[in-house]
């Protein structure tokens, strides 16, 4: 198998303001991110040769990508709608990158969008999954709450200690998000506030859960050899991994709830393509799937940032804070952006893109000496994961 490393580059990106966009339709959201990306890449919409569109809920059935074609007036080009639960945005990006890498297209648009705030309820809702009876009342916080409970039990964290540990992730992400103008939530929170918040699905409280937002993000992908025609600081794809697993985690015989194979495999693929052997040392910034604080904690271990069972030590030492050894969710993550499902993977990649270019919005958030960044989505029941590694210099690492 060949590697995607340094074969394609991102030359423009856009990201809408995330939040409760009561006044914005899905059309308004996609126009917002697409036109920022066009401008960033310095292209005209007629330059787009193909498009990959990631969305989960819009509409439910039978629309292809026509509801992206219409607001953007994309005529007569191939367009693909992608859906893969929480990794939808990454999947759109991955498919677009490989299509460009094979030489078929010279310039493509990747766009992810979701309009969640027209549903009338605050979360993603109950009754996820395949069967009306088996999972009639399963919720997203419930599913990830079960991960937290098992993690605490396995590593001997008492309920209070466990809650404090994941609570620190909420405090960190809110601090980071407070400096991110496009974030949904820009309020700092204290650990005490986090611990006293109402319980959503024990042990997860309100601040352990990400918000529900509307949002959209877009990227323009070109062959690496053409990248400098568009800009001086293109960002190169170093690796993109993605994995599904066959069974719902709850139905896997003997599953331990701490080693989600989809995450481990998707990271392995991306690291192998990029040539990363020690992610803790080599990755300079990461934006990972903090749908719940417990998810981020477990991802530290599954992505190879922390040794198994040692996430707590890194959390306590501030290793993942902006000033730490490996800043994670430097933009506030899903905690502050919310999770408009189809947009999230591309929004995360937008933050990595900006950090690598040294153009993070609000300079106080800009990290020093960033050469490699990682974005990750992980979700569904959970059953799917994607990892993208990006860098600013061809040939590195």
């Amino acid at each position, binding site marked *: 198998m060949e590697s995607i490393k340094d074969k394609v580059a991102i030359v423009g990106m856009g990201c809408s303001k995330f939040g409760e966009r009561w006044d914005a339709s899905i059309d308004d959201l996609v126009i917002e991110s697409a036109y920022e990306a066009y401008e960033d890449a310095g292209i005209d919409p007629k330059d787009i040769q193909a498009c990959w569109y990631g969305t989960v809920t819009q509409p439910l059935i039978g629309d292809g990508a026509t509801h992206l074609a219409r607001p953007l007036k994309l005529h007569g080009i191939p367009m693909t709608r992608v859906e893969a639960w929480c990794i939808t945005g990454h999947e759109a990006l991955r498919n677009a990158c490989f299509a460009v890498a094979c030489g078929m297209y010279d310039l493509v648009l990747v766009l992810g969008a979701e309009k969640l705030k027209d549903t009338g309820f605050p979360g993603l809702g109950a009754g996820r999954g*395949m069967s*009306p009876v*088996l999972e*009639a009342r399963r919720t997203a916080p*419930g599913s990830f*709450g079960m991960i937290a409970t098992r993690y605490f*039990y396995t590593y001997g964290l008492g309920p209070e200690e466990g809650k404090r540990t994941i609570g620190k992730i909420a405090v960190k992400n809110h601090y980071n998000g407070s400096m991110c103008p496009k974030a949904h939530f820009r309020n700092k929170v204290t650990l005490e506030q986090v611990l006293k918040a109402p319980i959503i699905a*024990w042990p997860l409280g309100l601040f352990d859960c990400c918000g529900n937002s509307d949002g959209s993000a877009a990227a323009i992908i070109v062959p690496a050899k053409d990248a400098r025609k568009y800009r001086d600081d293109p960002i190169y794809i170093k690796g993109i991994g993605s994995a599904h697993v066959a069974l719902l985690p709850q139905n896997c015989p003997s599953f331990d*709830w701490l080693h989600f194979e989809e995450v481990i495999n998707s990271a392995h693929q991306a690291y192998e393509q990029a040539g990363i052997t020690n992610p803790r040392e080599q990755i300079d910034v990461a934006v990972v799937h903090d749908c719940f604080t417990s998810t981020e904690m477990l991802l530290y271990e599954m992505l190879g940032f922390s040794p198994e069972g040692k996430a707590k030590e890194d959390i306590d030492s501030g290793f993942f804070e902006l000033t730490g050894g490996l800043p994670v969710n430097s933009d506030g993550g899903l905690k502050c952006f919310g999770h408009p499902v189809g947009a999230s993977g591309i929004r995360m990649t937008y933050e990595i893109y900006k950090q690598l270019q040294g153009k993070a919005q609000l300079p106080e958030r800009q990290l020093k000496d960033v050469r490699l960044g990682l974005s990750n989505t992980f979700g569904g029941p959970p059953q799917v994961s994607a990892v993208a590694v990006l860098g600013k210099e061809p040939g590195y690492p």
Partner: protein
Amino acid sequence: MAGIISYGAYIPLWRLSRDAIAEAWGSGSTGGERSVANNDEDVVTMAVEAAFDCLNGVGRENVDGLYFASTTPPFKEKECSTLVATATDLKPEIVTADYGNSLRAGTAAFRAALDAVVGGSARSVLVTASDCRLGYPRSNYEQSFGDAAAAFLIGNTTKPAVIIEGSYSISNELYDVWRLDKDTYVQSWEDRFIIEHGYTENMEKAISGLMKKKGLSPKDITKAILYAPTARAQQGLARRLGFDAKTQLQDPLISNIGVSGCAHALLMLVAALEEANPGDKLLLASYGSGADAFLLQVTDEIEKINEGRRGVKGFLSSKKALPSYTRYLSYKGLLEPQPGEPFRLFPAATTSWRERDWAIRMHASKCRNCGLTTFPIERVCYSCRSKDNYEEVRLSDKKAKVFTYTLDNLAGRSDDPTIPQTEVAFEFGDVRTYILMTDCEPKEVSIGMPVEMTFRRMYEGAGMYNYFWKCRPIR
């Protein structure tokens, strides 16, 4: 010899003190407590519970029929007995029938099973009776009714636990207690009339008729199991028949359960058999639009059957207090709770039918090649990828332990806002599944907690009631 091979009972976990009802209305309390089915239970799920209790340690291969009796079935058109039989995991090649409309429906099914095994059309028939009747708020019936189910396996064998020696029936046309097709609550005529000319007169006729037919006098009977709407009516009847109320009368189970409709006479029979000795002669009588009386002879086999059954005794002692009368009203659907998150995945008759083996029978697939067992059924093995090379194994009677859990505040409804969602590890293969926990105090859930499976009504969707399995702390 035709008789009882096994018995089972079910009493819901929740009990409401009659003082709490009286307090809510500022009325008098008759004392004690009544059983209350949970908001995910109905007469079908309760019958399944009683059937599992009855079949514990008994093979299903000789069960050729299942009868279900209730005056409060969830369907006006659609058989309940097929659903009970499927959830109980009986083979499809059986006779099923529903009995209803009368408080005697339980003993009607009991008699029909007896006739079937005597006539030779079935080797054994599982009889289930289950009721959740509603008395008008503040009425005496609201206090005196209870929810429960009973099950009997009736067979023709050389060694039944109880031989059914004879029976006698009376049919009587009378408006004493009734519900019209549109009624929610039980209506009744004046108490003095219906006890005297309904209950007492008909029970007396049926019992005297049976005693005369069999040449027996009251002293020949070890225990008289007399269904009764009140303890007082039972004692009055016993006096007129010449039974000694202190020694010969089976407790009417009103003070601690409440009158459980057409299941009640059979529930009392279960309680009587739990205390019976070989050689005892029992008289069973039930009432409703007439009366049925049966003469029963207990054999040595009773001692074997009494082991491994929860019965009335077991389920009576396993209980939790319903916190309030309001909760009772909401569990009964008389106060509408604010619904939780809407159900988005609607069932379809086609999918429910295709998935019945795992969804209703709770079968897992065990790979014949590598032995891995998964639930729900997987055609292609998760481990070795063999295709269609599995046997189905029943999980519904297997114990499990909580592997991990969450206490979910989004999944519930306003009368039960916190839903424990659990991942359980079965003590069987390496089977795991995600399953809701019911009949529990959420704060008591912990990793390692032993649980058992229970068949429940999940929700109404697409115009159908949809049933599935939950787990509960072992009762």
